[in-house]
Every structure is written in structure tokens, then in C-alpha cells.
């Protein structure tokens, strides 16, 4: 048993009466009870208690033993709304069937890091969630011991029932909760040993599943209130342009239209948060009674645009030598490609150098050089950006989907000048995140619009607004070089990586540390196209490129691709080169060996083309083997085998779902998706031309295995996504005899044969 200081701070246990939303929104009664039952059970209505007792900010216990656990972090589909409360319930020792889960609102007094990003929710919440449960359990035990006048050490607890075996007495949490709420918060609590876990490590159904499959209101777009108006924005048609003038008179007369005006979301003098990324600050706004009416009015609005001098000056990539008009700043994808290939590496800076790479290349018998690219990507959350705002004279109520509520609150504080305590942000379940909702400009826009209208409004982006608004995954380019000596030994390795406008390089990750002479260089090119984190930022390109290159290198060296990686990892483990190597070579090798065994590497039928890949990011290790066959000139992905080391798996079936989804997502983006530009205009505006992976293209089978090592949990939302892109490329090579270097691999529907 681990003793642990309850270091989450006394302020975590202040009475938080404001935790309930208070019926602000029709259809979103945050206190409405929902039973976290197993979905296959017959539904038995959970009796709600007459009185609740709050033991700390994470949970309250009803007089009948029902426990409400607040899930602190934003839910974007990564299932933390189920798995975070599971961790609290574990240490509380309560029957999961007696638990009601509620999404907590933003409350920085109680919770730390209420953010969905970096695959860190479980990893960074692990200790505080356990502590919240253990502290409450301790308070309940103390109260029971006091009532029975026995030492706490003589008590045991199971499923919310406290027992004193010596006197054959027992009492439920509900009966002792009132007394427990008066107990002083312990300075120190004991956490369970891993082998005592009853909830962690067992599969529990998504607590919102029933609402999802019955179409109940859950998402930001579902928010409604009687006097609410619908607002939409009209943004410039191209990156590098801005609003010049607008003729709104005709549109104001259209049915249902209440007002048409312009806003400046981020005035020049406003101090921005990192999350305030927005390509377009000045927007035309149409406000009306219904979504369809506003959509129609938007089409009729006459807006003039001109070049934005702020965004089109000093853009380094606009060089005349490459045939670009340096006065316009309206970028095109074909220029991006040539810039990255021809200009990028000339701006390189050395990030890491081990040994003497220049000498290794000079003395090499053979040098293998390959370049890889990927395009910009739109996040394309299925639920387009939206937010509800009700800004009155002295208060801002905001409700909707945002991954960074704490930073959004600061932005609203700065934009509207309201004190933080007068800004109330609540999170809905989100129809996808993938990093897009880290950038809450839409929340600020909603607040500004509501303030101007003096009314509650819901800002809604159309799909086209959402897809053409930016905050894209950057475009990247990497060149790899390998030096081989006369005996076919790898003597030097050179990675030169960059992008528009950031570099994807992780200089200290594998294969750094495994090669004597190693050189990593990085460069960037500027752009006025707004970018942001996209599921596994930077890894989501560099992993696939690196794993494709290693595959080709293994072939050139006549080695088995898995054994080649294992040999390098063995070197990194026993005799690492350089310092700051950012991976554990044993755990890396562990997932490769596990996937090799589970997939039966080398035992596949001759019909199957296999690709392997492995990568480390967000503190976790993932290896994948992808089985491909070809039918009617189309690639069929028969199976993907995944081995994952993310430490303790809190909710195994949900974790499998996440690995399956990350795998499908990675295949889709490697094969089909891209955002391109012509004169600054996004060339894909909706799903008719922006290709996302669909049912027929998904793997037929995804077989997921977790390494069991009892290590505290690490990331899972992102790690399965980057490596699969390498496995796709390597399997495509086996299937077609052709190497694939440029994503998306399937630019046309059929490219095989």
C-alpha cells in the first residue's frame, strides 16, 4: 500500500456549490440523473437521494449510497468521462453501478489541467483522481469508526459498505456520508496496491452511450434556450485576405434575420493566449432566428475583401526566384511543394550531432537518400465548431465544445474585461476534437457576438466554414540519408526535416542513440495559413516517414525489418550513443516483439503483403503490422495487429476502441486526405472532395494487444495514430513493388495496377 500526501491542496476541498450549472440551459440539466449502468443490463431506474453530501470537489455521496463523480476533463471521444471517474471509484471502493457521472464545469479552484490534449488526461490525472477517491474513503471510515467507537484499522470496506467484523456491524456510505462530510480532510491517505484493483483494468461501458444511441442532447450543437438566436460568421475566402466592406441592407430584410454586423475578435491591443489561434479576426456576422434562415442570408451577403497587410508582409516563402508574386501573399500548394524541396533545407539548423556524421558519409560505400512529404490537413471534427454564449452586463455564460476551457476563460477575461469569477464556462460532450478545439476562437467570437446582441446566441460554423477556417495540420517535408560501409553496416544517419510553418523533427527520438554518427537538422518556412496541433502533432508525419525509410534501409541491407529495428534498439539499450535519448529501448523492443508474435510475422500467406511500423510518442509505445491484399486494383486492408505499451490500462475495451480508431484514422489520413490551396483559397470545402476514410476502406480486423507491466498509465489517444502510416506505406510497397513517399498515397481513387 502506498501512503501519499493529499497534496492536491486544501483548496481542492472547498465546498463547491457552484459546481452545478443551475438550469441555465433547457435540455441541459447538468444535475439530471443518469445511471452509469452496464448497457446490456435491464435498466432499473436509479433512486435519487433526498440529500447529497459533498466530500470533496470530485464527488458527493447521496443519503441512499448513490455517488456522483465529476469528470474533470473535456470529453472529445477519448472516453475520459468514463475512465477518469473509474479511477476515483476504485479508490473510493464503491460499486460502479451506484455511480452517476457528471461532466464538471471549468473550476480551477478544484481541478488542475482541465484540458484535452497531449494524451495527458489519465497520465496527469492519475494521482489526483486516486487521491480524491482515497481521501473520501478515509473520511467515511473515520466517521464510521467514530460512530462505533472503534479504531479505523479494524474496519474494512467493499462496494460502499463499511464493516466492523469484530462486532459484526456494517454501514453503507449513504448512511455515514453526512457525518463523513464533517470529518477533517486527512493529511495523508493510503492508495491501493495495483493487485487490489477491482474497477481499474475491467471494461466499463461509456457512461454516455445510452444517450448517444437514443439521440439525446449531449453536444454543443444541441444546446438550445427559448430566447436564443443563431449566429454565423462569414470569413475571407482566402488566407492572406481580410474584410474590407459589407453591404448588409438587403440581407437585414430577409425573413428571420435579426442583425448583420462585423466583429473584430482579437483587436490589435489584446494580449492573446497561446490558444487564440485564428487566421481571421475581422468577421461578418449574421444573426437570425433559425439556422436555415441564417444560412440562406449568409449566401446573399455582399462582402468585399482585400489583402491583409499584416498577413502578407515579410512572408519568407514568397520568393520571386520560385515564380511567386511576393506582393500577394496568396499561397498555393504547388509552390509549397517546391519551396519545401528546394528552399527548406538551405535554412537548416543543426539540432543534434553525434560522432562525425560528415566523415561517415564521406567514407560511405553507399548512401541511400529518400524524401517524404505530407500536405496540410483539416481536423474535420464531425461536429463543426460552435458555442453558446449568453453575455449580460456583468456576466458571461458560455457552454459548448472546447478542449481548453481554462485558456478560453482567460481569453474572454481579456476580450470582454470581465473578472474570471463572472465568466462561467461549461463543457458539452464534443463531436470530435483531434486538436481542433484547443483553439477556442469560436468561443470568443460567440461571446463578442452575444455581448453585441445583448442576447443569448449559439454560434454555428457550417461545414464549409469549419473546413476553410484554418488551424490545419502543417505541411511537412523530411529527407533521410543513410551511410553504409563496404560490409553493409549502417555507419551514419542524417535527418533533415522541416515544414510550413513548423518542423516535425524530434531529434532525440529513435533512431538517435542507436547510431554512432548521427545528424539531425531542422528548418521552417513561414506562412499565413493558420496551423495548430493535430492528433499527435509532428509525430503524425515523422513517424510514418521514418518507419518507411527504415523499412527501405533494412531491405537495402538485406535484413528483416523487425530484426533490423530490434538490433538497433539493443544497441541503444546496451551502449547508447549521445545523451537525452527520449525513449526506453526495452519498452520499444517490447511492443515490436509482441506484435511480431501476435501477428505471426513471416508466417503469412503469399496473398498477403505486410508492413510493420513502431513508434514512441506521448510516453507510450505502439507497434503495428498491417496486412494488405489487392482486389480489383484496390488495396484491401485485411488486418492490423497492434501492440501497445501505455502502462496500466484503465478501461480495456474502451482502450481497444481508441487503438482501433487511431489505426483507422492513421490509415485514412495517410491514404486519402489532403487540404490544398490555390492563391490562398482552400481547394476543399466539404466532404464531396475532401476524402476521409470510409467503411469499405477500413481494416476488416483490428487485433489489439496491451503490454501488461503495471507501470502508471501513459498516453493512448494519440500514440496509435502516427506509426500506422508507416505500416501502410510498407505494405503498399510489398503489394505494388513501388515505394510511397508522398501523402496522401491514394490521390486518385484507384492507383494500383
Amino acid at each position, binding site marked *: 500500500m502506498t501512503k501519499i500526501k493529499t497534496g492536491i491542496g486544501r483548496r481542492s476541498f472547498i465546498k463547491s456549490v457552484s459546481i452545478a450549472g443551475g438550469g441555465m440551459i433547457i*435540455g441541459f440539466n447538468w444535475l439530471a440523473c443518469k445511471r452509469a449502468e452496464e*448497457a*446490456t443490463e435491464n*435498466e432499473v431506474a436509479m433512486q435519487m437521494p433526498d440529500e447529497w453530501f459533498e466530500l470533496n470537489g470530485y464527488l458527493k455521496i447521496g443519503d441512499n449510497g448513490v455517488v456522483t463523480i465529476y469528470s474533470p476533463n473535456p470529453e*472529445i*471521444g*477519448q*472516453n475520459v468521462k468514463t475512465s477518469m471517474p473509474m479511477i476515483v471509484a476504485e479508490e473510493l471502493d464503491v460499486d460502479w453501478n451506484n455511480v452517476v457521472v457528471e461532466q464538471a464545469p471549468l473550476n480551477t479552484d478544484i481541478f488542475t489541467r482541465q484540458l484535452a490534449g497531449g494524451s495527458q488526461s489519465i497520465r496527469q490525472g492519475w494521482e489526483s483522481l486516486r487521491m480524491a477517491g482515497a481521501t473520501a474513503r478515509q473520511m467515511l471510515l473515520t466517521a464510521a469508526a467514530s460512530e462505533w467507537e472503534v479504531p479505523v484499522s479494524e474496519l474494512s470496506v467493499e462496494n460502499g459498505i463499511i464493516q466492523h467484523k469484530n462486532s459484526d456491524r456494517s454501514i453503507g456510505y449513504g448512511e455515514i456520508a453526512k457525518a463523513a462530510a464533517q470529518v477533517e480532510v486527512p493529511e495523508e491517505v493510503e492508495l491501493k496496491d495495483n493487485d487490489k484493483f477491482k474497477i481499474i483494468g475491467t*471494461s466499463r*461501458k*461509456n457512461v454516455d452511450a*445510452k444517450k*448517444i*444511441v*437514443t*439521440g*439525446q*442532447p*449531449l*453536444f454543443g*450543437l*444541441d444546446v*438550445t434556450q427559448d430566447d436564443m438566436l443563431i449566429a454565423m460568421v462569414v470569413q475571407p475566402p482566402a488566407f492572406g485576405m481580410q474584410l474590407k466592406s459589407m453591404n448588409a441592407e438587403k440581407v437585414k430584410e430577409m*425573413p428571420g434575420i435579426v442583425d448583420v454586423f462585423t466583429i473584430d475578435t482579437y483587436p490589435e491591443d489584446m494580449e492573446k493566449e497561446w490558444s487564440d489561434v485564428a487566421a481571421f479576426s475581422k468577421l461578418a456576422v449574421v444573426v437570425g432566428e*433559425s*439556422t*436555415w434562415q441564417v*444560412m440562406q442570408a449568409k449566401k446573399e451577403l455582399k462582402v468585399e475583401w482585400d489583402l491583409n497587410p499584416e498577413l502578407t508582409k515579410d512572408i519568407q516563402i514568397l520568393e520571386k526566384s520560385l515564380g511567386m508574386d511576393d506582393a500577394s501573399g496568396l499561397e498555393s500548394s504547388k509552390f509549397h511543394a517546391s519551396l519545401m524541396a528546394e528552399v527548406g533545407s538551405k535554412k537548416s539548423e543543426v539540432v543534434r550531432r553525434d560522432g562525425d556524421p560528415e566523415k561517415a558519409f564521406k567514407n560511405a560505400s553507399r548512401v541511400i537518400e529518400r524524401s517524404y512529404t505530407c500536405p496540410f490537413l483539416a481536423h474535420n*471534427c*464531425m*461536429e*463543426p465548431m460552435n458555442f453558446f454564449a449568453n453575455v449580460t452586463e456583468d456576466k458571461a455564460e458560455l457552454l459548448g465544445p472546447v478542449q481548453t476551457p481554462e485558456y478560453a476563460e482567460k481569453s474572454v477575461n481579456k476580450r470582454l474585461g470581465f473578472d474570471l469569477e463572472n465568466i462561467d464556462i461549461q463543457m458539452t*460532450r*464534443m*463531436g*470530435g*476534437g*483531434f486538436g481542433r478545439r484547443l483553439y477556442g476562437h469560436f468561443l470568443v467570437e460567440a461571446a463578442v457576438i452575444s455581448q453585441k446582441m445583448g442576447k443569448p446566441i449559439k454560434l454555428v460554423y*457550417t*461545414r464549409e466554414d469549419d473546413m476553410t477556417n484554418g488551424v490545419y495540420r502543417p505541411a511537412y517535408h523530411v529527407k533521410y540519408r543513410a551511410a553504409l560501409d563496404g560490409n553493409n553496416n549502417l555507419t551514419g544517419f542524417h535527418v533533415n526535416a522541416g515544414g510550413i510553418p513548423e518542423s516535425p523533427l524530434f531529434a532525440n527520438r529513435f533512431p538517435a542513440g542507436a547510431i554512432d554518427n548521427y545528424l539531425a537538422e531542422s528548418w521552417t518556412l513561414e506562412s499565413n495559413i493558420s496551423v495548430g496541433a493535430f492528433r499527435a502533432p509532428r509525430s503524425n508525419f515523422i513517424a510514418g516517414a521514418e518507419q518507411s525509410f527504415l523499412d527501405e534501409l533494412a531491405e537495402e541491407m538485406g535484413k528483416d525489418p523487425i530484426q533490423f529495428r530490434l538490433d538497433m534498439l539493443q544497441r541503444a539499450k546496451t551502449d547508447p550513443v549521445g545523451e537525452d535519448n527520449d525513449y526506453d529501448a526495452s519498452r520499444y523492443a517490447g511492443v515490436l516483439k509482441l506484435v511480431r508474435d501476435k501477428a505471426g510475422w513471416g508466417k503469412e500467406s503469399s496473398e498477403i503483403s505486410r508492413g510493420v511500423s513502431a513508434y514512441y510518442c506521448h510516453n507510450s509505445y505502439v507497434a503495428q503490422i498491417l496486412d494488405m491484399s489487392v482486389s480489383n486494383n484496390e488495396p484491401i486492408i485485411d488486418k492490423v495487429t497492434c501492440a501497445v505499451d501505455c502502462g496500466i490500462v484503465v478501461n480495456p475495451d474502451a482502450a481497444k*476502441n*481508441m487503438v*482501433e*480508431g487511431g489505426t*483507422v*484514422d492513421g490509415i*485514412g489520413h495517410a491514404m486519402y486526405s489532403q487540404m490544398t490551396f490555390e492563391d490562398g483559397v482552400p481547394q476543399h470545402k*466539404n*466532404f*464531396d472532395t475532401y476524402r*476521409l*476514410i*470510409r*467503411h*469499405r476502406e*477500413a*481494416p*476488416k*480486423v*483490428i487485433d489489439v494487444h496491451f503490454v501488461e507491466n503495471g507501470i502508471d498509465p501513459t498516453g493512448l489517444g494519440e500514440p496509435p495514430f502516427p506509426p500506422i502510416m508507416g505500416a501502410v506505406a510498407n505494405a503498399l510497397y510489398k503489394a505494388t513493388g513501388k515505394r510511397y513517399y508522398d501523402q496522401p498515397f491514394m490521390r486518385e481513387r484507384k492507383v494500383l495496377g
Partner: protein
Amino acid sequence: MANFKININGKSQNVDVDPSTPMLWVLRDHLKLVGTKYGCGIAQCGACTIHLDGNAIRSCQLPISTVKDKKITTIEGLSEDGDHPVQKAWLEHDVPQCGYCQAGQIMTATALLKRNPSPSDEEIEMAMNGNICRCGTYTRIKAAIKTASDSDIA
């Protein structure tokens, strides 16, 4: 604006809207049936799928003026309490991640199973190909449809 009397989930409803208004927005804005989702507005993603006389149809491309006396079923009308065989199969396989597209997936799957109670893998893929799941739950969707196969779907 015009008044329309339409049959939704077995109930007659009166709505006063512009005749061009797609059923998607009639359901969501005017009738507060928000289970039917907006995803693309151009019939490319399937999030807004409803049933029109039992057939799966994209409600974003269905103006209210064309509905007339045809019967509309939405995700809310599939069952009283989530006990429709397809919904139960979805719960059994714990299909959703973000969950946003799933109502549309369920409506397409239900229409498929009505006309073809035991579809092959390929038939499932073909029928479901118009419904995008950005989270990538396709393998679970297929498994859930197979579980719901041969059940009595009214």
C-alpha cells in the same frame, strides 16, 4: 413561410417554416429533436440520416415541402428507451467514441437490416459507405450490425 403538417415518430406535428427548409433543421431547430446531426449539409457524411417511409434518407437534402404525408422516423423514434435491437447491439459493442455520427450510422444500419436481415460483410460495407465516422469506429459498427442481424426489426 407556410404551415406544414408532418408525421414524425408516429405523431402529427405542425410547423410554420419556409418551404425550402430541410427536415434536418425542422427537426433540430423547430421540434427540438436534436438526435439527427448536422455534419456536412450536402448529403456526403450521413450524420443527418432519418427514415422516410422506412427508407434511409439524408434529412439535410429533404425540404419539408416534399415530405407531405410520408412517415418520418428519427433516432428518437427508433425505440422508447434504447431497446431497439440495433441500439442494443451498439451498446453491447460499446461502439461510440465521440458519438456524434452514431445516430446517423444507426439509422442507416436499421434501414439496411429491414430490407436485408442478414447482410454479408460486403453488403454492410456498401450500405454504410455513405456514413463517415471521423473517430474510426467502423469495425465496431460492422460488428454491431452483425449482432443485430436476424433480429426482429420492426
